Each structure stands twice: as C-alpha cells, then as structure tokens.
C-alpha cells in the first residue's frame, strides 16, 4: 500500500504571503527554500513542464488553475530549456505521474532544481484575487523560517519585476549553434524529418524557448543563438538571413540595449519577434509598453488575424503589452488583436520585413494554430531579397 501523508498535509505548514496581506496555506511539494516572486496564474490544462521550463517565467510564482498537476511527470523531450525557471509553483494538488513518457516526478524535479512549490492551495480563490487585484508580489515560505507577518513584509519589500532586466539573467552566456544533429528538433511527437537548413538565422536569447528553435529549424533554418546583449554589429557580422527576437521574462522597458540593437537591425535584416521580442520590436518602432492587470497566461486565447478575419487559438504568457494608442500607424500595422480584451497581439513594420506576435506560435504548451508564422518568417526572408544567397 502506498503511504500517504495526510497528517502532514493537514498541518498546512507552508504558505504563500501576498503583498496585500492575504495568506494562502498549504504544504511543500518542492525544494526547501523560501522565495519571493511575482504571483501569476496560468489557465492551461496541459503542459506544466513546458510552462515551468519556459525562461519567461523567471521571477514568477506560477499558479495552475488546473487543479490536478503532476499527472504526467517530467521527461527530457518536453523541456523548453535546460532548467526550471519559474521561481515557485502554486497548485491545488500535486500528483504522482502516470504516463508512458514520464521519466521523473514533478516533485522530484522541483526539489532537484531547487524550486519551491506549494500544494493544497485554494487556487480558484487565489486566481480570482489576482484577476480582481492584479498581479501581486508574494513570498513563498516552505521552511518555516519566517512567520506570516514577516512573509507579507518580505513580499512587500521585494522590488518586483517592473523595470528589471531578467532577460540578461536567463540568456545564454555565449553564442551557440542550435541542434546541429537535429535530434532535439525531432524529439517525441515532432516532425520526424527535417528539410535541409538553407537559411542562417540569429536568434536573440532573451529567455528563448527551445520550441522556437525547433520551429525555425523545421523551416530549414540553421540557428545561432546569441546572448541578449549582443550588439547589432555583432549580429550583422554573422551575416544572418533573418533575426529572431525571442520571448523572455519581465519588463521589456528594462532592456534599452535590446531596443537599440533592434532599431539598428531594422531594414538590414528580416526580423520576427515573439512575446518579449514583440514588445521590444514595438518599442524599437516607437511604441510604448505597459503592464496588464494580470497578464495573459494560458493556452486558449483567441487571436484574430485582422487581414484574414480568422481566429487562432493561441498559447500566451505575458504581463506586458504594446499599447495600441502608442503605435505609429504610419510606420506600423497592427496585424492581430486579442478577442478577449482587444489588446495588440501582432504588428508588422510597413517599410521593412519585420513582424512580431505577442503570443507563442511555437506552442509547447498549447495549440499549434499559429505554427504557420514560422513559415511566414521564412517567406518574409525569401521574398525580401535580403537573403544573403
């Protein structure tokens, strides 16, 4: 018979303190470390492994609205980066795995990665609080080192993510070539065969998800990943056919070096931006970004392609957005909007081959509806005449 730890769970010895003073009690299912973080919620029903390994979640506590988590364990193929980037996890129930692809348990992986996590949390109440009050700073205490009042104080004292450059923290230290043998791109459930890589792409790593790289490679692009702070000159020196601006954590306004680089690259090389990359392109094109009340984190966001009039169900994960009213419509077209709240989801530079989307065409987790955007990137390169060959 399995051993259960009900008595321990009933004590609810761990807690999450929010900056507004609210306490959510539960028990620890991750590493024994206390952390501060920004509390967000994700409404996806699948893909917790992809979520927590997405570097965009750096600095954040992810609350899963889906109550049963851990069901499929963890496996090497589904990683979106080498480590778990979320600062902490908040769950209703953390289960043992049952899936033929599982290689380890979620709880084990969290402990190994040094990431704290809570279970036994009333996640619906927490979600409603965040929805109504907006994203909040929090302190996750699993060691018993701080009492609750202290926890609230720590949450309040933390500087938060606004104005913080988290991209530099999660970006690679050195440029590297993506997946020379194609093995990672062809991991389980992905296309088995790859076209020859005939285009050279430089991908800015602001916290890049591997499936972006897989998506590019599947379009016949050979990708070199470069650190966030790589200069435009250095990129151009690599003579890329296109530049990908990746997703990433925190606040785009804290990355002036990236905006400067993008400005310089505009017109010189076709660009595609995703999520943070989209916000950076927006900034480079003269727009401004702002913080959404509680962001978009989930796999079910309807995005309308304004030209085609069709809707894609998209994977999303962002707290900041490009402000529609700040977009210079003389230079930039808004190509996509979110049907839930009408926020800007995609822009295209009129003069140069550069476009970006706020959502995640690489999915993982989430629907594949937007995957053709990688094809579109390829097309924009091949028709722009900027191709080196």
């Amino acid at each position, binding site marked *: *018979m399995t051993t259960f730890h009900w008595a321990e769970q*009933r004590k609810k010895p761990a807690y999450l303190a929010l900056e507004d003073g609210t306490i959510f009690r539960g028990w620890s299912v991750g590493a024994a470390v206390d952390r501060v973080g920004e509390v967000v919620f994700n409404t996806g*029903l*699948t893909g917790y492994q992809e979520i927590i390994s997405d570097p965009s979640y750096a600095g954040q506590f992810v609350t899963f609205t889906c109550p049963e988590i851990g069901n*499929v364990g963890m496996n090497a193929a589904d990683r979106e980066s080498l480590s778990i980037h979320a600062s902490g996890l908040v769950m209703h129930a953390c289960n043992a795995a049952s899936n033929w*692809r599982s290689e380890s348990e979620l709880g084990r992986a969290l402990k190994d990665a040094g990431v704290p996590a809570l279970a036994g949390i*009333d996640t*619906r109440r927490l979600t409603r609080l965040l929805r109504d009050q907006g994203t909040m700073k929090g302190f996750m205490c699993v060691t018993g080192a701080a009492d609750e009042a202290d926890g609230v104080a720590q949450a309040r004292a933390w500087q938060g993510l606004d104005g913080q450059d988290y991209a530099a923290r999660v970006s690679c230290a050195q440029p590297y070539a993506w997946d020379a043998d194609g093995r990672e791109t062809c991991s389980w459930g992905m296309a088995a065969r790859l076209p020859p890589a005939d285009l050279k792409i430089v991908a800015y790593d602001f916290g890049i998800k591997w499936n972006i790289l897989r998506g590019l490679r599947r379009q016949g692009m050979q990708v070199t990943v470069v650190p966030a702070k790589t200069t435009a000159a250095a990129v151009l020196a690599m003579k890329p056919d296109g530049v990908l601006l990746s997703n990433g954590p925190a606040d785009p306004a804290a990355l002036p070096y990236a905006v400067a680089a993008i400005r310089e690259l505009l017109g010189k090389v076709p660009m595609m931006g995703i999520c943070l990359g989209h916000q950076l392109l927006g900034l480079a094109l003269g727009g401004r970004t702002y913080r959404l009340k509680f962001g978009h984190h989930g796999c079910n966001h*309807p995005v309308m392609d304004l030209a085609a009039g069709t*809707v894609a169900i998209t994977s999303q994960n962002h707290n900041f957005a490009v402000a529609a009213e700040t977009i210079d419509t003389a230079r930039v077209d808004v190509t996509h909007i979110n049907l839930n709240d009408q926020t800007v989801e995609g822009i295209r530079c009129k003069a140069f081959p550069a476009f970006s989307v706020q959502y995640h065409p690489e999915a993982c987790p989430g629907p594949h509806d937007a995957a053709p955007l990688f094809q579109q990137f390829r097309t924009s390169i091949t028709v722009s005449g900027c191709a080196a060959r």
Partner: protein
Amino acid sequence: MLIGSGPIVIGQACEFDYSGVQACKSLREEGYEVVLVNSNPATIMTDPEFADRTYIEPLSADFLSAVIRRERPDALLPTVGGQTALNLAMELDKAGVLEKYGVEMIGATAEVIERAEDRSLFKQAMLKIGLDMPRSGSARTIDEARKVRDTLGYPLVIRPGFTLGGAGGGIARDEAAFERIVQQGLFLSPTHEVLVEESIEGWKEFELEVMRDRKDNCVIVCSIENLDPMGVHTGDSITVAPAQTLTDREYQNMRDAALAVMRVIGVETGGSNVQFALNPANGRMVVIEMNPRVSRSSALASKATGFPIAKIAAKLAVGYTLDELRNDITRQTPACFEPSIDYVVTKIPRFAFEKFPSADPVLGTQMKSVGETMSIGRTFKESLQKALRSLETGRAGFGADGKDDPFEARDDASLEAALRTPHSNRLFDIRAAFRRGWSVARIHGICKVDPWFLRHLEELAAYEDEIRAAGSLAELERDAARFMQAKQFGFSDRQIAWILQATEDAVRAARQRLGLVPAYGLVDTCAAEFAALTPYFYSTYGSGGLPEASPTAQSGAPRRKIMIIGGGPNRIGQGIEFDYCCVHACFALRDAGYETVMVNSNPETVSTDYDTSDMLYFEPLTLEDVLHVYRHEGCAGAIVQFGGQTPLNLARALEANGVTIIGTSPYSIDQAEDRKQFQELAARLGLRQPENGLATGADEAEAVAARVGFPVLMRPSFVLGGRAMVIVFDRETLRTYMREAVEVSEDRPVLIDRFLANACEVDVDCISDGETHVIGAIMEHVELAGIHSGDSACIIPAPNLSKSVKAVIRKQTFALAEALKVKGLMNIQFAVQGEDVYILEVNPRASRTVPFVSKTTGVPLAKLAALVMVGEKLVDLGFTQEFIPQHYAVKEAVFPFTRFPGIDVVLSPEMKSTGEVMGIDGNCGLAYLKSQIAAGNRLPKGGGVFLSVRDEDKGDAVELARKLKQLGFTLYATLGTSTALWKAGIRDRAVFRISSGHPNAIDLIESDEINWIISTPTVGTEPAWDEVKMRAHAVTRNIPITTTINGLRWSIMGLKSYQTAHGHVKVRSIQEYHERSPPVRLPTRVSGKGLQA
C-alpha cells in the same frame, strides 16, 4: 426544419431534447421560422412555443416527406437529433425528397454524413490525412486469416461478416483460440468472410469535442478521458473531463488530429466529436470514430464546461462565425475560444440490469446504460464521490456505506475475475481490492484502468481508516482538519456516519457546529480568468473567502426564491417526463417573477441547461447536498412534486430539516403512498379497492393471499416504475418473492392486492389549488390492468369508457383531491371491470403522463401546477374546466429489448420501457397506427402473420383473425390456435412448435414468410421456452410483435382505417391541434407574486 431524435432509447436520451431546444431557440432568435418533427411528446422541444410548427408525427421517411410537402422548408438541420435524425436525413436525401422540394441540408451535407458513417470511406479519409486506425485485414480462408495474423500479432479481434450482433466473433489471444474462432466465423458468416483486426482492448480512450465555423475557425470545447479502457462503449464508461493523463505534446497531437478529421470529413460548420484510443505503452494513437453532429458527449461537454455546443452549432449552421458569437457565461468574451476549467467532471452511467435479470451484465461494445449522472468537484476524488452518490443506486460514495459486503466477500480469484470483466459495479470491486491490500500495479494489471485513477481510488479506500482512526464522531469534531480533509476527498455525511457508527444527522450537526460547509464554485468556462455572470454552480470543500457572483445581488428588488429538485439520472421509470415537468415549473415561476433554483445531477437534461433556471446547482440529489443549496440560497420553498421519486424520497427529511415543501404536503404524500393510511382514506371516502393486505413475512403474505384469493399482485411500497412488481399465481412463487423482495426496500412492507383480471386500466391526471379541481385528462389504457401503466399504450380521450364510469372516475378523483388537500398535480390509476371502478393507486405529484396530456390537450398542466403551488388560483389562471379534445392521441411505450438479446419481450407489472412516443390524428385507429409506427413497430400492410395465443385468448383471437383475413393477411398458427381457427371456419397454415419440428415460426421468420408475430404469453408459470425463443428471435430480426389481444385489436383498427383512407395519412402540427384548446392566463413578472413585498 429540425428532426428530433424520437423516443428515449438506450443510446439516445434527453441530451437530444437539450440540443434540440437550444437549436430551436437559437434559430428563432435569428428570425428563422422553425418546423420541428419529433415523435416524443415528453420533450421540451415539442412544446408548442419552441417552434413555429411542431409535428408530433412518426419519425419515418414517409411522414417526414409529408411534412416537407406541407411545409416546404428552405433547409434541414439534421445534426441536432442524434443518429435518428442523421439517418432520416440520409434517407430523405437518397429518396430524392430533399432535391424535389429544394431543401438544403445545413450543418452536415449528405456526403459528409456518408464519409463519417461508412467505415471504409472513413478509413480511406483517415489514411489520406496520415492518421492511424486499428489495423485489420479480411480473409475468406483460414490461410488468408493466418497471413493477416502474422502481420498484426496477438491479441486479435475476429469479426465474421454480416452476422447479427457480431455473432461468432471474439478475441483471440493465442493460436488455438485463433484457429477456432476463425473457423467458426468463416462458417457462420453468410459471405464466408472474417475481419481480422488488431485488438486495442485495454488502451486508453479519449474524446474531443470540436466546433468549426465556415471560416475554418476551430475550437476544442472539451477533452474527455475514459476511466474504463477501450472495450467498453463510451456511453457505458465512466468518463472524466478534462483529460488527465496526457502530456501537452500528446494532447496537441490529438487536437491536431481531431481538427484534421473534421476538415477531411468536411463538416463545415457545427460540432463533432472524435474518439481516439491511445496505447498506454508507447503512445500510439488511433482514430476510433467521429460523429458529425451533436451527441451525448457534446451535451456532457456543454454541461461540463458551460459552452453551449448545440446552441452555437445552430448559429454556425446559418452562417455565423465563432468570433461573432458571444460567450454566454462571461458575456464579455467571444465564443471563439477553448474553455479552461478549474475542476474535475465525472460522468457515471446508470444501468437497469435489475429490470432485465436474464440480460448479460458484462459491458462491451454495445451500449447498455439507460442514463447517466455527472458531478463536478475540485479534484477527481471529490468529483468521483459526488458522482457515485448522484447515481442514486443507494450508494453514498466510493463505498464505506455498509453496502460493500458483496464485493468484499469475494475470494481473491473471484475478485480478480470481477476486476477483469467490465461491469457496472467494478469500482466497488476496485475498492475491495485496495481494502485487501492489493497494489495499484496489481489492480492495473488486471483491469487496465490507468494508475492515475487507481491511485486516487486507493487514497480514498485508505482514507476510510484515517476517518475511523479518529475513534468517534466526537473525536472527529475535535479534529476539524481531518474532518475537512474527509469532506475535501468527497466523503458524504452518510459515509462518515457509517465509518464512525454515527448517524447522518449527527455528522451534519457536528459539521455545522464547526462551520464546515461547502463553498460554491462557478462553472465559468475560463477557470476564473474573467468574471462570469451566469449562475451555474457546484459545491466544493476547502474553497472560500470570495463569494461567487449571484444574480440576487444584481437584480435589484429581491425576489422569492423557489427551489425545484430535479429527477437525477434517467432510469427506467424515471426519465424525461419528470425533467419536462421540472423545466415547466422553472419557466412558469421565472415568468411570474420568482427566482428559480434548479438542483439536478443529470447532464442530459434541459433542466441542467443554465438558460432554464435563474440559478443552476449541478449537485447530487441527496439530503446533504440539497439542504446545503437550500440554506446557501435562502430559498422560500422547495418543489418536490415534479422530479419523480427522487425528490419525493427526500421530502420528509428535507421538511424535518426546516425546508418548506410547497404544494401538496409531505403528510398527504405519505397518506397516499402508505397503503395502510390510504386504505383508511379510501374506506372513509367510500372508494373501492381490490381486496388487499400488507405483509412483512412469508407466512403473513400467504395468509393475505388466502384471504383475497390468487392471482395476487405483489409489490414493495415506495418504488417507482413498478420495480419488483409481479403477478403471483401460486404459494411457491409468493414465498420466493417474499424472500427476494426484502432486498428491494428495507423497512417497508410488501403490498398484496387481488389481481383484477380483464380489467381496463385508466390513468387520470388532475390539478387542484385546494379549491378548484380540474381533470387534465382521462386516459384509457390499451393493455389490460396488470401491465405497468408506463408500459401500456393509452388513449385520450378514452374511447370505450361509458359515461357513467367516467362520471364515477371524476367524482372519485375530486374526492381524493379534496381529502389529500392536493396543491398541484395528482395522478390516479383506476381499474374498470365492467361498470365497477376500482382505485389502484394515487400519486399526489406530477406523473409520467403529464407531458403527453399537455401535448394532447394544449393545456400546460405542469406550469399551472407550479403556479398553484406558490398560491395562484386556477380561477385566475383561467383553467377550471376539463377539456376534451376533438382529436385522438395515443401514447405508446418503447422498449430496449434489442439491446438485451435473448430476453423475453412480454409486458408485466414491472416497467421496462425507456421511452414513449405519441400518435395524434383525427381518427382513433390512425392515431394508434401512428403511435405504433413511431414506436418502431412497423405493422405490415399485408403478408404473413403468425398467431399463437394462450387458451384464454382463443375466443378473441378467432374474431380478430377473421378481421386480419379481411385485411388481406395470410395466417400462420401453431396447433392449438390453428385448431380454434379451423373450428371457426378460418383457414390458416399450421406450423410446428419450435421444439416439435419444422417448419416452425423461426423458419418462417428466416424465410421472410411472416412479417408480424402475434404471441400472447402463457399466464402464471414461466413462459414457455418456445414462446420466449420465438419472440426473442423476432426482436433480432426487427419483426413487430404484438403480445396482447387488446394491442392486436387496436392494431387491426388502425390498419383498417389506413385501408379506408387509401394510405393517405395526414400530418398536422400540434399548434393546429391546439387551436381549440382553452386559453390559460399565466402570470408575468408584473402580475406574478415573485417579488417580495
């Protein structure tokens, strides 16, 4: 034009009323004129206000063509009426009717339906888009079969071509079995062909609900995972939403596949469901099938997520796109999105094997369940326990309620066998195995249920001991955290009471002292991401703090809240008719300005559509759960009259806990249902009852039988649908019955009545406000007393009752209404022997016949009754006079016999029908004929008829045989009947009894010489083997069987009218039939009394 799905049968229940109602509303909202055809009078969709013209006519191509000829619709929407509507649409298309009258098929075209339904076309389409299906090959010789085997490997499914119900097939796991089954299959197949297919038994099964619009926007509304692995029909499987054991990559690949299937099959707009199987060892995914229409699963998905698939499908069919439609629940965001849910939904099927003791209870690929229940909980554990107690099978959850003995008593070998064989109680065997210390791995190895589910079940089984370890209820009360954990795991008060040897009341009291009550979560489609305004709730423990939205807070002036308790899962004896009444109560009270609170647990129904009531609570119908809702909402009263036996059984306990039961008091209900009290009442009122008595033991029963004389009618008290009701002819059977009946109902005695032979049974529905009593209708049964009223056909207006008998019936009805202080509806069953009127039963509640009466007379009885219960007067409502229509309506019952091969089809006091149809016509015979066609008894217009009647019926049979001859039938009869006919000068062809030689009836069936069987069962003893075999065989060949003389008499009358009319049977809408119905005045928000003073 919309086609409904007809009568409730296994596999097609009220989910198609739900989808049909949504489609009708949705299309009329857009200004379309809707013509509806459905033979089922118990549906909400056939209420005259839901369509412009409603035809309650048989669902056959002939009748539909007649409706099309008359109505000339522009388009036909065939996708909301189940398989029935889809098949009929195909028939109409093939017959050229649609083309001839220029009717466009919308939602799904004929080509699409063909591609989805035809196995080989479907397979081609799947291969074209690179999707996998179970691999197979066909073989005409054993060598060919071996070759196929060598490419596929064991286990293999062998399916002989064109045998009935797949007879002769099987699963081969080794060479010996393979050789044997293939040889047998090749022999049995008329085409000497077998299909050798890889077995996917034990794989995981999933379903996705897809919607698509004309711009090719696609969304998945819901993913569903079956707890029961492949091998059990999905309708008979326990299912869970959302899918729990898929990685994102697996799920997204499945999603891509589902969208690809929808596109290649060509469903341009609307909803479809796609079923997949997944090999749990390596993730290989195969497509099982797709349905290009709304389905039982889509109804479940709608209730599980709040996304109204049928409503949206109808809008998409007329050209909207998903982004143009609003999400009803949030009212801010569009319908073009994929719901995310923050709870777990469990559906459990409800079976009726107790009704068919000789049927095979093993679950397989053919659906056998008659209903289902759904529950919502934060976790799988909570959800499953709630679902199990919602099932109303007497269980209080996942065991631990004192009813586990049959499972725990099994020895290891039989427990293992019980785990291996899918059956309706397998969960309790799993519990027993865990209680015995078996591991998840071991149990998984036997039953293949995914370990993810098993682990939760193990935890529940183990937690019983954690509760027990508290020592006593008082100790548990001191350990509030442990108590809370038990509630979060879904343990009911009843389970906790059993574990701690306390009472349910004491557990509830302890909980209340601790403030341990559930919170209510909102079904909001978006996992709380957006504020939701539609009040659709479920209970869960351990959630709190922020109250969810409630319309009470928003709607200004406070309104009186009335709770309506629904009927729970469909079962035989309690089905859509009661849901119809509940829905009508909601409509009437809402219109009158009351706030209606619906509580129900059946996902198929209209009552659990969030549009029906002001507030919907999807909850188990137990005292614990209902009481919470009542108190949480602060209701002013609860209606228990409309949901059948389920709420009635709760009435007294609710009242004892402070619930105001409105309408007829529980005291009166008891008075009518308790035999002793009722006997006194009948005596006081001078009403005649068959001599009767009560017995709790066999000796007592024998004494009663000796006093009143055999045959006697025996039944337990307080049951619905004639459960365990039998006619007993001798002492021995009586003793056996007393031994077995005790299990049926614990502390209630058995009722014993003298059986009234050759009596005509009469049903009366009556409404009363305490001052005015009005009869809704007097219904004359076609079958004689002794056959359950739910199983017999009945006719309005009563064609054969004398004026004086009717006068007596009316007088007695009013006397009872008066004496029982009825406020609302009352149903009485009388038996009429000559001019003698006996009272059989009184039910001071809405009966199964209410919708039939309303569809016939045009009087909204259920609505009037609901209003009367809240204090309106019939005088003010404008209904004070019994209305007798100028036309005839016949209700006929529909049976599930084809689902249980080999069982006998005879009627008895035990109800067996699952549904009903109605035939309506100016001519009584034609109305009967229509009812027969609608019920699927396609009476032939000529040809061979086989007659075999019991001795008592020989006299009548002679007279009727003569009429059959006049109608042009050729008669075949067995010796006894034949002799009787020859003596009367009627020439027939004599045949052998099945046991005595050839040719016999079965030979005649096989050679197509007869197309109608008249066989009245031998009375008293077990029916003869011959008869049973013949009738069962006829069922499998779809040959109509008439088992009563009265049924035959009416059939002949119908056929005669048909001949007289030269086959021109007219169709008319019920709006036309209702033109002369009395106008009633239903109160509005302004004139009603819903607003609080």
